[in-house]
């Protein structure tokens, strides 16, 4: 993992912790168990990179949908750091704090209220009306899917590599 820290440009990225973490996350590496591995080999590296495959022209609806779900699952794992399948308020706050950590002027209070506001919006999208004693535990993957409906992630989340042959090896 230390090798990742030595990449110079990554230093300025506020969510680098999460990105590096994602490489070692067993769920992303399609392994059965939970938790983190210590090292990854080249094949594992490619497996992670394959999440960023651009879509092809001749995909049909079902394939596109599967693609989209895969990419969103990758993102979901990045948000959900304790691997319990739900994004709780604390985890969301964590994400927002990291995102906004670049600006030294911002107080923690504001970051937390932003996260709270976003959580409220998520609640209203996913659950609609709730009674006064109901508790909203966290964002499940289905809710996550709903939230991302407006954003066309298939076309945004990809990196175009100059040499495409290595990607083909993953599948």
């Amino acid at each position, binding site marked *: 993992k230390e090798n*990742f820290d030595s*990449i110079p*440009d*990554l230093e*300025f*990225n*506020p*969510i*680098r912790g*999460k*990105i590096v973490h994602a490489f070692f996350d067993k769920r992303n590496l399609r392994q059965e168990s939970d938790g983190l591995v210590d090292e990854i080999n080249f094949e594992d590296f490619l497996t992670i*990179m394959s999440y960023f495959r*651009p*879509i092809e022209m001749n995909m049909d609806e079902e394939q596109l949908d599967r693609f989209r779900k895969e990419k969103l699952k990758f*993102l979901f794992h*990045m948000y959900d750091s304790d691997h319990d399948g739900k994004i*709780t*308020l604390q985890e969301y706050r964590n*994400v*927002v704090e990291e*995102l*906004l950590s*670049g*600006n030294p*002027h*911002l107080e923690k*209070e*504001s970051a*937390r*209220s*932003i996260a*709270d*506001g*976003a*959580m*409220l*919006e*998520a*609640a*209203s999208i996913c659950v609609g*009306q*709730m009674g*006064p004693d*109901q*508790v*909203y535990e966290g964002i499940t993957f289905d809710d996550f899917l709903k*939230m*991302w409906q*407006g*954003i066309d*992630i*298939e*076309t*945004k*989340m*990809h*990196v*175009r*590599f*100059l040499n495409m042959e290595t990607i083909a090896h993953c599948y």
Partner: protein
Amino acid sequence: LDYQHVQVPFEITLWIMLASLAKIGFHLYNKLPSVVPESCLLIFVGLIMGGIIYGLNDKSPPVMDSDIFFLYLLPPIVLDAGYFMPSRPFFENIGTILLYAVVGTIWNVFGIGFSLYGICQVKAFHLQDVSLLHNLLFGSLIAAVDPVAVLAVFEEIHVNEKLHILVFGESLLNDAVTVVLYKLFRSFCEMPAIKSMDVFAGVGKFFVVGLGGVLVGLTFGMTAAFTTRFTKDIRVIEPLFVFLYSYLSYLTAEMFHLSGIVAIIVCAMGMKRYVEANISLKSHTTVKYFMKMWSSVSDTLIFIFLGVSTIGENHEWNWPYICFTVIFCLIWRALGVLVLTFFVNRFHVNTITSKDQFIIAYGGLRGAICFSLVFLLPDFHRKKLFIAATTVVILFTVFVQGMTIRPLVDLLAVKRKRESAPTVGEQIHIRFLDHLLAGIEDISGHWGQYYWKDKLEYFNSKYLQKILLREYDQPKSSIVLLYEKLERKHAIELAEAGQLGHAPSHPSLLNNDRTVITDKKLEDALNPDVLENIQEILARNLYRIRRTGPAYNRHTLPGETEPAEHAKEILILRHKSL
């Protein structure tokens, strides 16, 4: 009666008054703007006015002076367009836009020029004396898509953001090409012989014009941002700086024969970020309002003058030439879009569908720029023919294409603009995605789009912000005050409507929120006033909040209805969950 003394300002004011009254007139009758675009109606009014003047004076009405157009009427519109341009979609599609603007325009110019020359060769049309050079010159001024006309038509049809930005961006950036080609062919007309060196000089000139315009714009933009850093004590003249610097950049670029439109757009886009952070809220509103007002007036005046100038004895009718001009404009544009899109789609995942292509081709409207350029032509014996042809093309594109584009968009079921309010969560996610992709690009060593964006942000935060922004003080108070005022107003409205069972007090609303989210104790309870503040904070952290409302609407400002709507929405949402 001392009319001579006040004649000039009096007449100008009367024209502006006529324009504004005409605008009120259209909007009184609600159904009209949806069927007939405003630009058509304005030209119609202009035609009537021209007819009246012609009838009264029995000579040609005053033709729109090209100087007035280029120096006074065009800059406000372009400034408005540049200032309110959504920079994110613009830069995401900049490759495509540049391709269309540069290569597409050149393709159109040469295509139209050569085919018209071919037509001139036919003996039956009596057009032998129009040389190739003249045809190319004509091609260069008629080929360019006009931003004013495009803006006027597209703002009413609300197509999806990408399509809008493609057509619109192209119409703005093709000015550089148009300027170069027009001046080039014009100087060729006057030169006795043309050497190949001159052609190469022309190509080089294009780069100079384009890049020079960008540089001029950037210089003035940064200077403007820097100036506003010191305006804390004299808030009243802050809006003036925005306008002065932008106009200066336009004039400077024109002075050096660079592209003024590119300069003013770059200036506006560059300074927007920093100026908005530096100037007060009231100055900000003033800037917005004045910009919209000026561009609205300019727009109206241009179309009316277009109508007025059509009447008169300036024309020489040669039916074959004119008809073929119109036909060739359409054909070459369609071909150009097809070929270019074919290339673009090979490199991009996000393809431009054939429906979009059709709209891009069909949306290539010509407008007042062509008209002014044709009047600037040196006087040669075929000038009136060109004027007639230009007028017909403009009227055709504005009336026929302008009126039919809306039914076509509906018919083809082109993807429309997403009408949803911006949510905080969405912004967080998009920003997260940006950083993620930048990180992945860093890891893989790939210099992609996100890599450069990230680098620019870093450069910005480290150097530019320190120089150009005033010290980041927390002006929470005015925002929170405004928000509280709005919330109170809506709470009172709801109470009057009898919906709230108990007194509309903030604490009771907040108490219920706590149970909605989690049962953990939240000290900083979810404050409705903070939500607006949140958006402000996110914006101040340079996370642009995308306004998905119609950004270029002449009649409302972006974001004008939003805070109020947002407040209402949140209140209602919260109320439902009670």
